Each structure stands twice: as structure tokens, then as C-alpha cells.
């Protein structure tokens, strides 16, 4: 069958290649766990709070288990042991475990062992039900106050202080924002723990903490009711704590998360194995909690050239989709990322950008897609910059993007002022209103520049996917095929947090999410 630009068979071929590419990593994922996955398990049981030195309790406990060489049985198992030692609360469990001589602790008799696992499994099921209830409450609010039509206008706040962020987020929502993102403090992705509590100091953004999530969601719930329009909240599940952030976000009823299978590897130099394992668990949580993920392909074309590397975006989207589907995510949850980043000094860039956005839409018809504004070639002439952003607004509505990050005319100068957001929202609303349905009015000629460019880019994406299938993902990343960034399998940060599961490894949350 044929459709716009390319045939359905060609798209199916890309999808099959992506599946072959991600296959080998699932063996790695099944055999191993990470400190971050185990901390997530403990958080889910309700282990919250920090120790006397400010370290999160989940870190203290997991580090203790790791040092004793017993973490490979799963933190859930040891949580169960603590309960059997008479722990009366999660905090008490942590204290008992850190004090216990884990190295010499003998296995329980078989019957007791079985009972322990059954008890912990029952508790996990209860916690999963509670999470689902929280998600249901969010769905009810969404139902009561429907969201505006797409593209959903996504705005960023980044003051460093969660309480100032709340003021800015409310103002943005009042001016028409549909999604609020709280940018994280610079380098949080490299912290191997999730900071605790409400925070008022951050650099380039605000720390992602469970309490900050709660504060912001509460404010937006309030704003949604006032505006009679549900306003979504998103944050960043990337870096060394992907799955912990995913859990905190799910629990606090966030709506979206940046979550990419390769972003951490390429742009934060986080170890490959660590990332593959963490992304899987985090995406399982997103799937269960009905979170939309946003992938980070747009970043490839801020490092590499957007014209030359357009095909890497498409190839990576197929790979990200494959990882996501295998973690149980549905198509409506896939905010695959791309952007309006071709050098505006070139001729015909509007045609090229339309071509790329139409191609992405063609390949992923049921995904919401996440469209990013120009950043790399932004100029400090705010008047030009504003006009430049407006063209991205047009392409977004033309190609039915689900989520559109609005460009800021002061990009490349400072973090957005309140007025910058207002101006961006006003013109994006105008473009969306003015041009909605334009795709149904104009047919793109199959022999024209837009179609030929799309076919060319898709052809190169197939070539890249074929190379990855033949030589493996690891080799392709090693050659710098994505975003011009080269990484090695055993390089990067966080490899020491990866460990092989013991034969009797126990993780009831994973079992439940995988349908066992």
C-alpha cells in the first residue's frame, strides 16, 4: 500500500530493523539490575526521607546491600527480611537492615522464604493499586476539564526556586500554556540520588524532587479548575536516576516525562548498559501510570547539522519506539522528539522543515510527537527570532504535532522572562487558530521538493538502521552515528551501579508490570 512519500512496507521494514537492533539489549536488561532500579523499588514501598547526613534513605539502604554483596537478590527481598526481623515501618526497615550483619545472614527455611516473597508481593500489589488510584484521580480531573486542542503548547519555567516556579507556571497557564515543564538544575542528571524535599536553590533550573513535583502539580490542579482546562506537567526522567524520577512523577500524577533510551548515553555520557536497564524500568512505570514520554532526538540536530543529520532523527525515533513498545507503552504515549533546526540562512528551509515534520508524522501516525523550536541558529535580534519561531508554529499545526515547545524570542540570551512566554503563547495561539486543518486543504505533490527530500531522508534512515542492525547499536554509537557523539559500551558514568541478578532475584513490581 502506498501513502504520502513512502510505502507502508518501507515503514514496516524500518520498524522490523529497529526491533532487531533493540533485541540484544533486552537480554542485558533481563539479566541485570541497577542501584537506581533497586532504589525505585524501595521508594515504591514507601521508603522516603533522608538520613542524618542528608542522604536519601533509599541510597543508604541500597549502598549497604551493595557493599555487603547481596543486592543481586533484589532490594525487595531484603525489605521483606527486614519486615520479618520485626520492622514496623519503612524507616525502621532501613535501620534494621543497615545494622544487620548482612554478609553472614543465613537464608531462611524454604517455607519461610516462600512466605516472605508472598507477603512482599502482596504489599507490592497494594502499592500498585494505590498508584493506579492516583492515576485515576488525574484522569478524572482531565475528564472534568478537557485539554485544549493540539498542538499542546509547552512552556518552560526555570527559576531554581519551586515557589517562584509556581508563580511563573500559573502565569503561563493563564496565558494559554497547556504543558508546563520545570527545567531541572544543571547536572542533576549526573547525581546518583534524587534530592529530597522542596528546594529553593538551583542552577539553570529547579531540582526534580518528589516534593517539588507535588507542589507544582497541586498548583496546576488548582489552576486547571480555575481555567476549566486541564494543564499538564512534565519533568525529566533522564540521567542516573531515570526510574526513580519516573516513579516520583507517576506517584505525584505528572502527565509527561522526558524519557529517552539513548539521550543519557549520548549527551550526558552515562554508561550504555546502565541507561538501557534504567530506561526499561522507567518506561514500564510510565506505561502503567499513563505518562506520555518525550524523546530527545531533537538534540541530535543541535550538535550535528540539522540538514545533514535529519535521517538520524528518523532512525532513532524507530529505535526509541521499539524500546518503548517493548516496555509496554502505547502509541498515544510516544512523544517522539524532533525539531525546527535547519540553518535559516539556507534557501527553502520552510519546505525542508515541512518535509521532515510530515515524514515523522507519516512514520508515526498515532504518536503525539514532540516538536521543538529553533535554538541553535537563534539570533539576539528578538524581532527576527520571534518571526523565526512563528514559522515553527505554522509547521507544528500543519503537521498535527501533539506537543509543541514554544520558541522564546530571547533564546540564546537569558532564561525566559514572563513577557517572553506571553508573546510566544499569543502568536502560537494565533497560528494554531489560523491554520488548523491546513493539511487537509493542500496536497503535497509527490514529485516535488518536499516529497523528494522526505524520500531521501527516509532512505538514509533505512541505511543507518541497516548498519545498526548489522553491526549492533553499540558499534553504531561508537562511530558517532547519532548526534555526532561517540561513546563506548563500558565508558561513561554509572557502570559500577549495574549488577547481575542472582538466580533468586526478586522484584515484585517488575513482575507485576511485566504481567507475571
Amino acid at each position, binding site marked *: 500500500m502506498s501513502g504520502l512519500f513512502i510505502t507502508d512496507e518501507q515503514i514496516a521494514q524500518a520498524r522490523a530493523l529497529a526491533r532487531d537492533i533493540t533485541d540484544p539489549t533486552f537480554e542485558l536488561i533481563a539479566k541485570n539490575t541497577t542501584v537506581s532500579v533497586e532504589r525505585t523499588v524501595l521508594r515504591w514501598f514507601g521508603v522516603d526521607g533522608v538520613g542524618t547526613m542528608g542522604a536519601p534513605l533509599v541510597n543508604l539502604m541500597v549502598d549497604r546491600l551493595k557493599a555487603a554483596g547481596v543486592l543481586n537478590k533484589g532490594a525487595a527481598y531484603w525489605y521483606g527480611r527486614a519486615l520479618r526481623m520485626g520492622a514496623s515501618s519503612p524507616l525502621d526497615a532501613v535501620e534494621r537492615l543497615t545494622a544487620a550483619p548482612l554478609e553472614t545472614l543465613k537464608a531462611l527455611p524454604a517455607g519461610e522464604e516462600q512466605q516472605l516473597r508472598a507477603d512482599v508481593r502482596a504489599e507490592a500489589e497494594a502499592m500498585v493499586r494505590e498508584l493506579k488510584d492516583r492515576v485515576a484521580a488525574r484522569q478524572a480531573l482531565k475528564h472534568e476539564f478537557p485539554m485544549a486542542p493540539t498542538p499542546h503548547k509547552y512552556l518552560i519555567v*526555570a527559576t*531554581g526556586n519551586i515557589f517562584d516556579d509556581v508563580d511563573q507556571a*500559573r*502565569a*503561563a497557564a*493563564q*496565558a494559554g500554556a497547556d504543558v508546563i515543564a520545570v527545567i531541572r538544575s*544543571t*547536572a542533576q*542528571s*549526573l547525581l546518583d540520588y534524587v534530592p529530597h524535599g522542596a528546594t529553593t536553590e*538551583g*542552577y*539553570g*533550573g529547579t531540582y526534580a524532587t518528589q516534593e517539588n513535583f507535588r507542589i507544582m502539580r497541586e498548583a496546576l490542579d488548582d489552576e486547571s479548575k480555575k481555567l476549566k482546562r486541564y494543564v499538564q506537567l512534565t519533568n525529566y526522567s533522564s540521567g542516573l536516576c531515570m526510574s526513580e524520577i519516573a516513579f516520583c512523577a507517576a506517584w505525584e500524577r505528572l502527565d509527561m516525562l522526558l524519557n529517552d533510551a539513548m539521550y543519557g548515553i549520548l*549527551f*550526558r*555520557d552515562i554508561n550504555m548498559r546502565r541507561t538501557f536497564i534504567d530506561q526499561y524500568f522507567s518506561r514500564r512505570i510510565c506505561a502503567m501510570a499513563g505518562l506520555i514520554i518525550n524523546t530527545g532526538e531533537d538534540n541530535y540536530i*543541535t*550538535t550535528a*547539522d540539522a540538514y545533514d543529520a535529519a535521517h538520524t532523527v528518523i532512525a532513532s525515533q524507530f529505535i526509541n519506539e521499539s524500546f518503548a513498545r517493548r516496555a509496554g507503552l502505547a502509541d498515544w504515549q510516544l512523544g517522539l522528539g524532533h525539531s525546527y533546526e535547519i*540553518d535559516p*540562512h539556507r534557501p527553502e528551509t520552510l519546505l525542508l522543515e515541512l518535509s521532515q515534520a510530515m515524514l515523522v508524522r507519516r512514520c508515526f501516525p498515532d504518536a503525539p510527537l514532540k516538536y521543538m523550536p529553533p*535554538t*541553535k*541558529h537563534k*539570533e*539576539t535580534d528578538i524581532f527576527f527570532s520571534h518571526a523565526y519561531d512563528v514559522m515553527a508554529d505554522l509547521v507544528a499545526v500543519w503537521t498535527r504535532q501533539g506537543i509543541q515547545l514554544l520558541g522564546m524570542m530571547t533564546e*540564546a*540570551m*537569558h*532564561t525566559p*522572562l*514572563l*513577557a517572553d512566554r*506571553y*508573546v510566544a503563547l*499569543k502568536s502560537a495561539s494565533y497560528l494554531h487558530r489560523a491554520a488548523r486543518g491546513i493539511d487537509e486543504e493542500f496536497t503535497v505533490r509527490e514529485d516535488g521538493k518536499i516529497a523528494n527530500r522526505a524520500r531521501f531522508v527516509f532512505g538514509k534512515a533505512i541505511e543507518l538502521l541497516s548498519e545498526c542492525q548489522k553491526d549492533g547499536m553499540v558499534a553504531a554509537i561508537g562511530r558517532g552515528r547519532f548526534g*555526532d557523539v561517540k561513546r563506548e559500551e563500558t565508558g561513561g558514568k554509572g557502570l559500577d551501579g549495574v549488577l547481575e541478578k542472582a538466580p533468586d532475584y526478586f522484584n515484585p513490581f517488575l513482575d507485576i508490570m511485566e504481567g507475571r
Partner: protein
Amino acid sequence: MTTPTAREKHLIRAYGDRRDDGIIQLSFTLPVIASEKAKEAAKIYCQKLGLTDVKVAAVERAAENYTFFVVYARSAVVLDYNEIDTPEIVIKKKSFHDLNAQIEEEIARRVVVFGACTGTDTHTVGIDAILNMKGYSGDYGLERYPWFEAFNLGSQVPNAELIRRAKEKSADAILVSQVVTQRDVHKENSRAFIDEAKKQGVLGKMTLLLGGPRVDHKLALELGFDAGFGPGTKPSDVANFIVHQVLQRMGKEQKGAHYEGEPT
């Protein structure tokens, strides 16, 4: 007694559509509900800035309690353009080809440059624009220059590591990019870089350059760098400056000379 030499004045005012009309445009937000009163407040605010003939062109409800204004007004401020002091231009910026040829001839070895976003900064857009092959705005990056050897270490590189790596290769210049500026973190980290440069003994030996959207030459000099490059800098600006500095260190060019395009 000496009398100051009489110098011809060149008086200028802001130009709207007629000479000396002094018209400027500005926009700002006040944290009040949009109303006639808010509009009046914006007008008074501008008058307090010393502006006259204030026309509040737009009064926009940016949010429940915030109003955004676009204003046109006149300013009586006059400048004597002849009193503005700018560095003398003594060196012409060379083309890609000519600069490479000059290095080959006068330096006779490749000029080694290291660059990174140091500290916690993760934004490589600036350093990439200057160093990577592709360059910026049609201007080739330093990697493309056959007579430059450029190393881009990427983001979140510790200051000490960048300096250590540069020393290993006897680099001529180090480029530090600082994009995140919240709470002046860029200044703090830049100071830390200079402290580290002193500790490792490269200060005054290598050319140390600072770049970023909120960086200017004056700030960079204050912090202890040899130059600062702000928004709009092209890779060729940086390349020319480095060559000019290397030649100075070799004694082939006059100290204190400036080249065309050098940050002022």
C-alpha cells in the same frame, strides 16, 4: 597652563524617523492587573526613567496579575560620539585561507586549541559553534582549519581536567564556554578556572578565552582571561585573535595591538 585642545563634537540622539527625535522603544511587565490604572502606571514609570512624550502602545494581560507593555517615548539624552573610546584597529581580520597561510609561514606549526564547557554547564552549543567543523552562520569552525589542531572536550568538564589536557598537548589557547548564567554561576566557575590556571602555571603562558551569551570582553578581562567573546561571535573571530596572540608571544607582533573584530 595647558588648555584642552578643542575638538569637534559629534552629538547624537536616538533616531526614530527624523534626526534627533530621540525616539526609543521599550517593553516591560508590571506585576499588576491590566487596567487603565496599569497603563497610567506604565506611563509614569517611563517618565521616571526620564522619557518624555510617552506613548503606551500596547497594554496586554500577560497573566492574571501581570501586564505587559510596549512603549514608545522620547529621550533627551545626547552623546558626543567623538568622546566614545574604542580600541584602535591595527590588524585586519584575515580570511580562512590567508590565516592558514600566515600560520604556516610565521608560526610554522599547527596552533593547538582546547575548548570545553566547564563546571556543571551542559550546553555545548557555543563551544561547538566555534570549534566543530561545521562552524556557525556559514563561518567554518576551528576543526576545519588545517593549521589549527582543535580539541573539543564537550560539557561538564572539570576546570582542572581541561587545563591538564591542554598542558599535555602544549596548547596555545584554551576556550571556556559558559552558557548557564543563573545566579552568576558562570562568573563563579570562570573565577575558579583562573584560580586553577594559576595553580597549574598556565596563566600568562596560554591564551585563555571565555565565551558565552552573557560574556563580554570587559567581563572576561576582569575575571583574568585574555579575551571574552559574546553572542554573535564567529569562529573566524576567535581564530584570528588566537593567531594574533601566538604571534605576540613569539614577539612577532606588537604588544597591545588589536585586530579588527577583536572583542571590545
